[in-house]
């Protein structure tokens, strides 16, 4: 992600209470892009779901295991990667929470949230173990990020 004009990298332990910290970083980073509040809120929600899954399913709440969040802005897109140290899973083999039989399940809606709130989501799996969720959202061109600041 070298050509990006904004890049923040954050690493937390596997504590649910740190999800808010991640969301604050995302919201603060989005604030500079002057995105619509609704859009910023939904990106923040999607990231929260990805980090919750990384902690819960990936790292199984082992506090020693880390979750890494890469927040980047390309010319026209916000790209957030969430990486855990878990064993991965088969995204094609996840129950559909919209099927009538599953409607009353207490969980299984996180990926649905992510796909609804982002333009594109993608899972990849590292050779050495670990899931990477990549969340992408195109920016309206009016909300383009300014280039790197040159103030002194």
């Amino acid at each position, binding site marked *: 992600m070298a050509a990006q004009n904004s890049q923040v990298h954050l690493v937390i332990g596997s504590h*649910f*209470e740190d*999800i*808010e910290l991640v969301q604050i970083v995302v919201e603060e980073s989005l604030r500079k892009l002057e995105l619509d509040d609704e859009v910023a*809120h939904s990106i923040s*929600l999607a990231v*929260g*779901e990805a980090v*919750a899954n990384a902690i819960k399913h990936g790292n199984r709440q082992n506090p020693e295991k880390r979750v890494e969040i890469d927040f980047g802005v390309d010319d026209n897109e916000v790209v957030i990667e969430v990486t855990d140290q878990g064993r991965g899973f088969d995204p094609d083999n996840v129950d559909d*929470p*919209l099927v009538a039989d599953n*409607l*009353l*399940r*207490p*969980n299984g*809606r*996180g990926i*649905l*949230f992510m796909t*609804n709130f982002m333009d594109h989501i993608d899972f990849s799996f590292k050779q050495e173990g670990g899931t990477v969720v990549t969340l992408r959202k195109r920016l309206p061109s009016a909300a383009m990020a300014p280039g790197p600041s040159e103030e002194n």
Partner: protein
Amino acid sequence: MDIGVRKESGVTILEPKGKITIGVGDIALREKVHNVLDEGEKNILINLAAVTTIDSSGIGELVSGYTTVTNRGGKLKLLHLPPKVQDILQITQLVTVFEVHDDEGEAVSSFG
């Protein structure tokens, strides 16, 4: 999370404020619903007007609450959905599950 509790004509109204999200408000909401049931109340109306954010865990707790209350022969209904929560009930297709009201008086009398 702060959850207000009131009673109106045999209906217990829960009023969560702020976030119903993983590790923040989800467990608090679950416990509150269980407390109300343990006190023998069966009709629960959750006023979501002051909820700023709900994530999939929070939605999960609403669904669990609904199931638990229904299984015990009671009713769980929702009042005053903020637009964000409304959107999420659409996305999750839970609009077909929950009975939602916009008016407290009507909501309370609907428990009959």
